[in-house]
């Protein structure tokens, strides 16, 4: 594999592009083919749900934490689910320490929107007592190795983390005005409804391809991420300076629904439901 530790040179760019023009990729994949997904769930003892997801050499560890807080006044019976991402400096010599950079903000935002707009997390199930107490969920993603296409790996990681959830179940004590433990747990079965998948495509010149690897990502003009449920497109995000004509967008919409169906079946994420009750 190409050395990813430095900025890709002109020669490497030309090599990648000329391969793509022949519908070939430097790692041997077809244009619409994913690298292999590997998923482990509930690996973190301290978290209330977690996932260790690899997509090729890209690896993201995601954990779930919760807090109990007051609901927003305008949504008195709904909990909250937030997504954060951090591109660890351990993950690549390209990353720097410091506050969240643009790439990690983008990762968190696209994954968050994929979840938020697809009726995935049942925020009403996260209400303990109307106006008084709701769950605030934190889905935090840490990139452990960066080898391209963090978004699709992060999407699967966040989803698996939520499915694997086991959060202490709270009951509102109206006298003491506090939340008490019922002794049981809230699991992914209650929290998660829809399973949205996000698919990211790279574009170099006029060639479009699924799941960019790191060298492809470093040379591409732009990317587009499309989130889908079973039959609907729920989120789109274009980034970078690539432009797409309208027919390309229509084609990618159709492709995404198709690939989403396949992924849904192959990954079978519901197998990771927590068995704690």
């Amino acid at each position, binding site marked *: 594999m190409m050395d990813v530790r430095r900025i890709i040179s002109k020669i490497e760019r030309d090599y990648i592009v000329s391969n793509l023009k022949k519908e070939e990729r430097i790692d041997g994949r077809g244009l619409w083919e994913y690298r292999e997904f590997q998923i482990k769930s509930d690996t973190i003892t301290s978290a209330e749900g977690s996932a260790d997801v690899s997509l090729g050499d890209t690896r993201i560890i995601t954990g779930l934490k919760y807090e109990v807080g007051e609901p927003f006044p305008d949504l008195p019976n709904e909990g909250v689910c937030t997504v954060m991402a951090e591109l660890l400096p351990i993950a690549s010599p390209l990353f720097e320490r410091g506050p969240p950079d643009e790439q990690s903000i*983008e990762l968190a935002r696209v994954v968050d929107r994929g979840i938020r707009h697809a009726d995935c997390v049942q925020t009403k199930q996260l209400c303990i007592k109307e106006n008084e107490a709701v769950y605030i969920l934190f889905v935090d993603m840490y990139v452990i190795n960066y080898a391209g296409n963090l978004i699709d790996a992060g999407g699967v990681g966040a989803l698996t983390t939520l499915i694997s959830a086991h959060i202490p179940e709270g009951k509102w004590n109206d006298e003491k005005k506090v939340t008490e433990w019922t002794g049981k747990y809230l699991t992914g079965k209650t929290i998660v409804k829809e399973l949205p998948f996000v698919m990211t495509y790279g574009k170099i010149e006029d060639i479009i391809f699924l799941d960019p690897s790191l060298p492809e990502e470093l040379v591409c003009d732009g990317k587009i991420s499309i989130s889908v449920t079973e039959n609907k497109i729920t989120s789109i995000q274009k980034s970078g*300076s690539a432009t797409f004509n309208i027919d390309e967008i229509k084609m990618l919409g159709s492709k995404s629904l198709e690939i989403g169906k396949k992924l849904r079946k192959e990954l079978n994420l519901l197998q990771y439901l927590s068995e704690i009750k």
Partner: protein
Amino acid sequence: MPLIIKDEYPENLFREDGKRLDGRDVNELRPIKMEVGVIKNADGSAYLEWGNNKIFATVYGPREVHPHHLAKPDKGVLRVFYRMATFSVFDRKRPAPGRREKEISMIVADCIEPLLFLELYPGTSFEVFIEVIDADGGTRCASTTVAALALADAGIPMKSLVSALAVGKIDGKKVVDLSGIEDKAGEADFPIAITWYNEEISLLQFDGDMDLEEMNEFLDLAKNALKDVHQIQLEALKSKYIKLQEETIQTKENNDKKGDE
């Protein structure tokens, strides 16, 4: 901290006469006004009113990159800084720039970069500053549109302009140019930008719920409306040159008069 009046949204986004709440048809734009050359200190500037949006954009460049380490040896650097005034929204915005402002800065930059010939300006930078002083829905699209105008006003060579607007779904109907209320209370928001030199899409975001057929309809709807926006941009530039011409004539006449004295 609480406010006395709530930012409430109406139950229905269409009136009984089938018009939208502000009296528009489904495919009608809000009133748009554009002007270039409004800020004297800048290399280029533009001002836009689009519905209740009021936005300034200025351009500085090509100039030395500051800080230096951001300079690139093989091409110019484009930097976009989008900011909102504290009083531009219903709840006072905190003065410090937030994540949303950084996100929109990036989006606008992605729309503008394809228009420029950055490879002709190695080692220099172009800075685009956008200030929203009154916001009303669609600020990212309006900002993209006015930023392109400011670049043109600066006389920077461009492949074409870019125009942006949001289509969306409200009360189940597809409409163009979502207003602030429609954006917040509607079902789907679909900001789209078109770069006119290749008629391709350079901004595309969607949050909501649509099948393939709906998506195709949205794209066609947007393209038609964007042609009108583009026209307004061109007229703003034209009227600048007309004004310049008139000033030149005026000056000439004055000089002639002086000569007569």
